[in-house]
């Protein structure tokens, strides 16, 4: 675009001396604000740390050398009983499979709902701009109500079993992913969306073709992170009495001595699951960003 104001002939040449003064003042002001913010942040961190330290049973510095005590206890026992490991891995595998199933169903449903909520509540993309606020608050509520409470209420209605857990986790995921999805969508480039609007595309078409391809890598990695978290989530599955690998871990862990070999085995399974999910996430992202195999 031609800026006539800065063209060869046009426009007043600004007086350098006053400009400098104004900009220097701006820099000083910004520096001051920056310094104040930094000082406030550091002061909050330091005083927060000291307060927390004072309220804690043990102090931070005295406790630091003891950090290894518990892991040492755990590992020495797990190492002593390492012979049990293969058997335990095998024993907990079905539990892992079931948990992954529950987490997967919940994540699928939750992320689909979250995607819809996100698009409905992103300023600029929402089909009904007036409803952005209520949808945002709905998402807040979905993720603020603890899953355990939802699960408990559902258990009294539906009885124990995986379904209450799935619903509770899915509601939570819809709220949590809705927020993250919406923030990713907010950053998306609007040009393609506008291009689609200009050909008379419906809202659904604009979102599907204009927004989703852009945000897919981010959405995917958030979703898979959620899947991981859901696999580990122990509390809800424990409450519904369904067990699940996270709950098994919790039980073994809380039992303490005597079951640390179980802790090690379950942890190994969880770790492997997470590595697998992480790799899938990386591969899929790569595929979306770089394109599958275009010539």
């Amino acid at each position, binding site marked *: 675009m031609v800026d006539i104001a800065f063209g060869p002939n046009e426009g007043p040449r600004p007086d350098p001396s006053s400009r400098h003064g104004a900009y220097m003042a701006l820099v000083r002001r910004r520096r001051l604000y920056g310094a104040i913010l930094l000082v406030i942040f550091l002061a909050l961190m330091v005083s927060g740390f000291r307060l927390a330290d004072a309220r804690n049973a043990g102090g931070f510095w005295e406790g630091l050398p003891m950090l290894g005590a518990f892991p040492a206890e755990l590992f020495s026992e797990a190492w002593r009983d390492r012979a049990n490991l293969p058997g335990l891995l095998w024993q907990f595998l079905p539990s892992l499979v079931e948990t992954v199933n529950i987490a997967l169903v919940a994540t699928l449903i939750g992320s689909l709902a979250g995607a819809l909520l996100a698009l409905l509540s992103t300023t600029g993309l929402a089909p009904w701009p007036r409803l952005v606020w209520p949808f945002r608050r709905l998402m807040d509520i979905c993720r603020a109500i603890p899953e355990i409470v939802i699960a408990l209420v559902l258990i009294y209605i539906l009885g124990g079993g995986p379904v209450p857990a799935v619903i509770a986790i899915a509601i939570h995921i819809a709220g949590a992913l809705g927020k993250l999805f919406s923030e990713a969508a907010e950053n998306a480039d609007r*040009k*393609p969306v506008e*291009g689609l*609007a200009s050909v008379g*595309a419906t809202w659904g078409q604009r979102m599907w073709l204009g927004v989703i391809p852009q945000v897919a890598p981010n959405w995917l990695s958030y979703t898979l992170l959620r899947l991981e978290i859901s696999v580990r989530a122990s509390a809800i599955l424990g409450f519904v009495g369904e067990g699940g690998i996270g709950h098994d871990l919790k039980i073994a862990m809380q039992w303490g001595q005597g079951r640390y070999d179980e802790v090690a085995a379950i942890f190994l399974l969880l770790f492997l699951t997470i590595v697998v999910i992480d790799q899938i996430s990386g591969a899929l992202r790569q595929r979306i960003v770089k*394109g599958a195999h*275009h010539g």
Partner: protein
Amino acid sequence: MLTATDLTCRFGPRTAVDRVSFALDRPMFLGVIGRSGAGKSTLLRMLNRLTDATSGEVQFKGTDILRLTGRAKRDWQGRCAMIFQQFNLVPRLDVASNVLHGTLSRRSTLATMFNLWPETDIARALDILDRLGIADQAPKRAEALSGGQQQRVAIARALMQDPAIILADEPIASLDPMNAQLVMDTLRRIHDEDGRTVIANLHTLDTARRYCDRVIGMRDGRVVFDGTPDQLTTGAAREIYGADASFSEKATSTTLDGLPPDTAYASTMLET
């Protein structure tokens, strides 16, 4: 055929387009010129219903298109194609899909989700790309193309809409002179051969003079010039651009002096 009456658009306190009126009685190639911020883009966006007008009306063959909503509005957008300066393609999708998007107003959402494009449409898209000389780019992602190629994809998408009107917002501003000529030639041929109305925002006067049947000059949202290219003298241009006597329109010229319009190339491009 297309009549705009007192078309006005306000953004808060700022009036981007101020009581613009014009009437086209037959399909023509209309150029809109004016300096940055004059309201050219806003005018086109209102015609395409991307931006809502504050007041005024636009009649097209008897219907006020500014009153359309929902389905009817999308139908109108389907008949009135827009070409953007920044192309506004979907960069991660391939070129052919981008062209097929031109048919979206006729397709159901579900069908698009499952990529269900009729094979005849695919063939037509390829034909159009072929007319524009980029058929071999069809399987590539749009983002992998050069600017000139992307602009031609955008034109292909517009043609795919089979529109009555083509709105082009500075279609050549980000192109090099060669590509610029190519694109303008293409638009002119589309007007000449298919009889479609083309309304193009242009930054450069000589382009307007060379290609348009009629030119509208805007300044601060208002129409300050409306006439044939011949009437667009340097004096008129100074008036439009609000420039003083030192203004030399050559400064913004992209003319390809001495190069006759490349009719041979344009005709190979447009024959199907």
